């Protein structure tokens, strides 16, 4: 368990020893619990149970990887990629029953990308682009099975 998890639990245990305003003040000072960040999900195929949906999403990420690999002037920052990714998925899945159907996949894809390129909003240099292309291609391959 992480050190400051211990602090939160110990602090909560001590809270009843303080009375009135002291308790309220102490509780107000208590930091919120840290979010538990899961590691990247290793089996995307198990998340997307519908074979038809898997085929569509696999094809989408394969095409996205290809487009990104060839692009030189449009997706020039990681922030721009994030915006394009959101829009492209929206366009793909809008007016279908796939829209918002796979929250676990949504998180898994985000985790994979973060693991590959981090969360810095910066320029898309060659190394970042290559890692992103590989990540998207990897997602496509896994969904294809």
């Amino acid at each position, binding site marked *: 368990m992480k050190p400051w998890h211990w602090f939160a639990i110990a602090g909560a245990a001590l809270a009843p020893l303080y009375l009135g305003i002291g308790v309220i003040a102490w509780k107000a000072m208590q930091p919120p619990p840290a979010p538990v960040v899961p590691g990247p999900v290793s089996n995307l195929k198990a998340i997307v149970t519908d074979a038809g949906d898997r085929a569509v*999403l696999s094809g989408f990420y394969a095409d996205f990887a290809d487009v990104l690999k060839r692009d*030189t*002037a*449009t997706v*020039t*920052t*990681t*922030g*721009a990629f*994030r915006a394009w*990714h*959101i829009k*492209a*998925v*929206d366009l*793909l*899945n*809008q007016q279908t029953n*796939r*829209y*918002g*159907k*796979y*929250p676990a*996949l*949504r*998180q898994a*894809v*985000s985790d994979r*990308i*973060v693991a590959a390129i981090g*969360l*810095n*909003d*910066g*320029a*898309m*240099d060659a190394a970042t682009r290559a890692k992103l292309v590989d990540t998207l291609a990897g997602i496509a391959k896994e969904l294809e099975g």
Partner: protein
Amino acid sequence: MPRSIPSGMKFWQQKVDALPAAEIVKMYEAGYAGVWDDPAEKEKLHSLIRSDGGVVKGHEAAHANGWADSGKGKLIATWTHVEKCFPGCWPGAAQERGDCVSHGQKNANMTTVACEIIAAKPDEATGKVEGIPEIPTAGITEGAFSSEWLYWWRGYNGDGWSCQASAQVSIKHGMMLKMSYPELGIDLTNYSGSLAGKYGSRSPPAEMDAVGKQHLIRTATELETFEEVRDFLANGYGEQSCGSEGYASSRDENGVSRRRGSWAHSMAYIGADDRAETHAKYGGPLVLIMNSWGKWNSGPRAVLNAPGLQIPEGSFWTPWSDCKNRYVVAMSSAAGWPRKTLPDYLAPGL
């Protein structure tokens, strides 16, 4: 202020705040001076550089920092860093008055900022890694950084200025972006000649200066040789130039334009080409020049033997021999903007 414009040139005269780009070009071709050499401002710039512990002459800075000749024999594509950070920023808004010095200065400063973002090293003064500032798309299309902010400090209401003075303004008053500053009651998103002329003999208010000063260019250095121009660009320093050379509006198959006519004009240097094949074809190295007249020129935007690489609209390569007499000043590291972090890569549609 003592001004020295080239023989045969005239001080800029314009009855309205805004002229169309084609008229602006005609003004330059007719001999109206957007720039002049100002010996007094040059001395002030030298004093300012020295007072901040900087070096006036570029070759001294290059040798002192160990990167003299680092660009030798190479294609220096500095402009691509700017395009990565601020896609669509060039050619930017075409100038509507004789404020070319502020546009050239803005482009030089923006080049330095972009290179620092790409380098992703901690800023030497703040220790922080800098990122891309948030600028609305409309502002990026207009040039991303404000030329008006710089022009407002020229000290008089007329048009025309000096590179020496604009470099000082960048060091003393910093940079502002092409966006709205509601807390200051000003919107710099869209360029206009009247906005550029809002201040001049009257300086901008102190509260605006306080914002601009958060993003100072730290020092500047004068460059005299192609090697210095090349090496400073190679190491991520944007360059401002002032001179009286005019250039053809058509580019050859490699984006090159030769001398034609005379313009008392300021333009930024955003790339250099010192490759052997370039020397063989053009008799020497090339410099990439970014003009401030919008899409004023035509012809291929290719780069010799670099398939897929293009120069920005409004720019052109020219041989060093066609621009070697221009005054050039490189802008050093900038106090940039904090690096931003994305929240996640969640796509709600999944």
